């Protein structure tokens, strides 16, 4: 069977994931790496990264980059914390407010990129500082969240099987949100006009413009979408930690870019998929897991993720060098 050229990076990533999972399972076999519970924990522990990475996938597919995701994520978690704890808003209102704020900041950056032609990286770098500063302006310290509704939401889980049996595993809300974002993202990218426009934009912006596609509008909304995903990741963070935190999300942008690239999306734009990003997130999740098992320090973990990203980007370079793509 001949595999279409454009699916090869994704297949390579899947192969890498299977190999990695196999090796990890062999090495830590006694700790049950092959059980469903471990897999669900993997989804759950990486839900923040995963949701951010789906938004980042659209940005990178369009040929751009978004450095503000970590800061926006942490801003959104702080906003939820402050709204619930200091202004006594119910979470039902606080969460949509944070999502709206994240989308608005993202869309604002998108509009600046669209209307001024300033490069995405400098706009989103400024956006990252803006979001960090705004977070500190709203509240100087991290906020712990205690609210019955919020707690109820955080405990929400779907039993896979009969709930009364002891061996039944539960799919927690954070993992559900992650999977939902992946599914919706995949649907949008494959079957909706917006998604097709994103691919067209990343493939060749001029051609997309000449084809009459709404390049400007799409560009602005891509960053709005990424902002929404970051804010949603902030919501997930509050569910996981029960606090709005400033220190989370530093260097999250690198992890997200790494997940997208490891998942087979080309940094030059136009080629890649949301499902690939899911695979990329799982690969990075397993590596992070292994590093915790092996008791690596935080610094070394960062170095490892950086090296992983580097290896994949260099591989991409080598693979695409043959194809006629101007540097």
């Amino acid at each position, binding site marked *: 069977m001949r595999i279409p050229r454009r699916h090869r990076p994704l297949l390579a990533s899947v192969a890498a994931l299977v190999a990695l999972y196999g090796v990890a399972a062999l090495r830590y076999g006694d700790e049950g790496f092959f059980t469903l519970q471990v897999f669900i924990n993997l989804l759950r522990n990486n839900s923040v990264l995963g949701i951010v990475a789906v938004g980042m996938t659209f940005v990178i597919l369009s040929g751009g980059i978004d450095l503000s995701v970590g800061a926006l994520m942490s801003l959104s978690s702080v906003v939820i914390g402050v709204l619930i704890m200091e202004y006594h808003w119910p979470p039902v209102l606080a969460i949509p407010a944070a999502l709206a704020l994240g989308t608005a900041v993202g869309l604002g950056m998108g509009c600046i990129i669209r209307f001024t032609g300033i*490069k995405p990286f400098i706009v989103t*770098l400024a956006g990252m*500082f803006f979001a960090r500063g705004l977070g500190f302006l709203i509240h100087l310290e991290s906020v712990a969240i205690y609210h019955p509704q919020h707690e109820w939401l955080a405990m929400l889980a779907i039993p896979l099987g009969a709930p009364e049996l002891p061996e039944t595993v539960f799919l927690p809300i954070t993992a559900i949100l992650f999977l939902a974002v992946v599914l919706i993202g995949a649907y949008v990218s494959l079957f909706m006009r917006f998604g097709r426009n994103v691919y067209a934009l990343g493939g060749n912006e001029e051609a997309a413009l000449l084809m009459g596609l709404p390049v400007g509008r799409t560009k602005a909304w891509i960053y709005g979408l990424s902002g929404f995903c970051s804010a949603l990741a902030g919501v997930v963070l509050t569910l996981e930690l029960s606090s709005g935190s400033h220190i989370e999300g530093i260097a999250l942008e690198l992890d997200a870019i790494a997940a997208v690239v490891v998942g087979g999306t080309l940094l030059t734009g136009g080629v890649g998929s949301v499902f690939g990003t899911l695979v990329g997130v799982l690969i990075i999740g397993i590596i992070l897991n292994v590093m915790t098992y092996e008791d690596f320090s935080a610094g070394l973990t960062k170095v490892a993720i950086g090296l992983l990203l580097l290896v994949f980007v260099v591989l991409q*370079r080598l693979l695409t060098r043959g194809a006629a793509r101007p540097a």
Partner: protein
Amino acid sequence: MTLEESRPAGLRGRWAAARHSPVFWPLLALVILLLYNIIFTPNFARLEIREGRAFGSLVDILQNGAPVMLLATGMTLVIAVAGIDLSVGSVMALAGAVAALLMTEHNQSVPAAVIAALAVALLVGAWNGVLVTYVGLQPIVATLVMLVMGRGIALALTQDQKVRFEVPAFEFIGTGAVLGLPVPIFIVVGVALLVLLVLRKTALGLYIEAVGSNARAARLCGLRVHAIRLLAYSFAGLCAGVAGLIATADIKEADVANCGLYLELDAILAVVIGGTALTGGRPYLLGSLVGAVIMQTLTVMLQMRGVITEHTLIIKAGMAIVVCLLQTRALETVVNRLRQRTGRKPVPQARST
């Protein structure tokens, strides 16, 4: 430069020439900012001499601004060759950590520690350069990796601890004074003079501009584009290393988690304020230095008014957008459209992108 030389002599001609000089607008902004502070910020202009040494906000700006000025010097060259270096802040932390560890845990002499730290910084810069040139990665990605990895390596080396030291000879780099002025100022002036000399008096300045303006044309002219880019990145790493040593010596400890944090935006902003185009082209080093002083004046001013460091990030982010806006054609287009509507002559488009 031909633009200025072709102007008629005399006072009007001189004024026109000055107005077209790239340093004019940033310098004007700095003067306005300083005047505003001298008038409205209490104690800003106070300058006193204690124990043969000058103290005051103005000296503080130059002393604490030294790291940003050094970063901006390196960044000017990188941006001039159409690149970007996001890793400078992390390289600062790494260089500081290497020097501090060598002096404390390995009992090395000060010169050995300084040379080793600078060598590491140079190596990191060269690594960035190789990834961008010979491997062909986008500058943002290659240096973003180093932004995270550099601090990661520094954290791993110091085992997440701050490294305190008591080495007067090393502290001199950060807190010492010569002729009543802090040592960091002399370091900045020395480095800047060296770079200016190279840019103005050797062919390298022209090569850098050529590579940034049109890399393809430069290559066809027989320039070794990769080598020139590699040189720019290596030099930016070295500058970041020097900045890291100053920052570390200043507080007598290597604080890996905070050293140089968020400084990459300051450096990029300083360069953009100075007039070097983000798309590459002619480097305006003096403009970048003025830009760095503007950034530091802003920081000091906000600090003196009781604004917390984290909040200044918002203002800097806003400035980044405004300055970029002024640099791109977008604003010119809007202004011209307005002028056309009011029946006035459009402004000639001065800068080509």
